[in-house]
């Protein structure tokens, strides 16, 4: 399967659209001092944007995740955090436990 040419257009345009932000970031970063106030504000905006996107994906997902319920996703996040701290901050244990509980909760709801 060669794949449709219009998918190549999408992929290349998507790559360019994403790199535009990265390249602009390198360009603008040249004038910013890492211990200045502007740097602190930009870092706050970056953390908030990342957190905002993740929160949006967890609270209001699109695609496959939209088939799950909000309480299921929130419970899975809580399980992940509990497992993370219970295993002395083992990221793998936390993430695996969280994903497994989402699958299990979803399975129980659909099966019962």
């Amino acid at each position, binding site marked *: 399967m*060669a*794949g449709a040419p*219009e*998918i*190549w257009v*999408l*992929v290349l*345009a*998507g*790559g360019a*659209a*994403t*790199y535009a*932000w*990265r390249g602009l*970031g*390198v360009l603008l*970063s*040249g004038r910013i*001092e*890492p211990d200045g106030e502007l740097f602190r*504000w930009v*870092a*706050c*905006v*970056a*953390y*908030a*944007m*990342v*957190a*905002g*996107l*993740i*929160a*949006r994906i*967890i*609270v*209001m997902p*699109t*695609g*496959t*995740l939209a*088939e799950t319920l909000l309480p299921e*996703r929130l419970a899975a*996040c809580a399980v*992940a*955090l509990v497992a*993370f701290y219970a295993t002395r*901050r083992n*990221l*793998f244990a*936390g*993430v695996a436990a*969280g*994903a*497994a509980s*989402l*699958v299990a909760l*979803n399975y129980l709801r659909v099966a019962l």
Partner: protein
Amino acid sequence: MSETTHSSGAAALRGGAREALGVPAAVLGAGFIGYGSLAAEHGYSVAQAVAATVLIWALPAQLVLIELPALGASLLAVIAAVMFSSARFLPMTISLMPLLRDSRYGAVTRYACAQVISMTTWAVSMQRCPLLPVEQRLPYLAGFGIACLAVSAACTAAGHGLAGVFPPLARLGFVFLTPLYFFVILVGEVRTRLAALALSCGAISGPLFHLLSPEWSVVLAGFAGGSIAYWLQKAYGRRA
């Protein structure tokens, strides 16, 4: 996270790669297996799916690129949505690059390294780089980022080949791994109070702004949440 410095730039590069080839690569790999199999179901060839991972290197944007055309959106609308969803790379790059600045790395190296910045590599580098000598930070990011990118590209191809093998329920787990991973690193690994404040403000504003305007939500939540956090720390930070 045992060692904090390396003997040279090359050692920092290898050290970064070694750190990536643990939990980060496992979680990203699983997420990209899910992406690869989704892409296959939407008519992507294996080369197209791998190219998307390497060139875009942002899972939310790659999912937009699959979901929106499937809903019948025009090319222009799809590209606009990708730009909105990946606007975070601007403040992410601006806030990481000054930490990596060192006279021995030229512009080409810096522009090339910007491509490996992702939510994972950024979140890890923001924590790790201040602990490293300045000349080792850029090699560390490069090693960590290239290793993550290579594993993700390989897993995209594997997922493409495995399309149809996973039951929908298993794919649900794969798709949820990545947001969950970010959730746990962001909650569990952030050390400074300012970053914690910014994360909380962003997490609250993200869904709120999504209700107002789905396409502008990431940008607006970042500016509003980040500015509120910055202001709160400035106004109350010294007393707390």
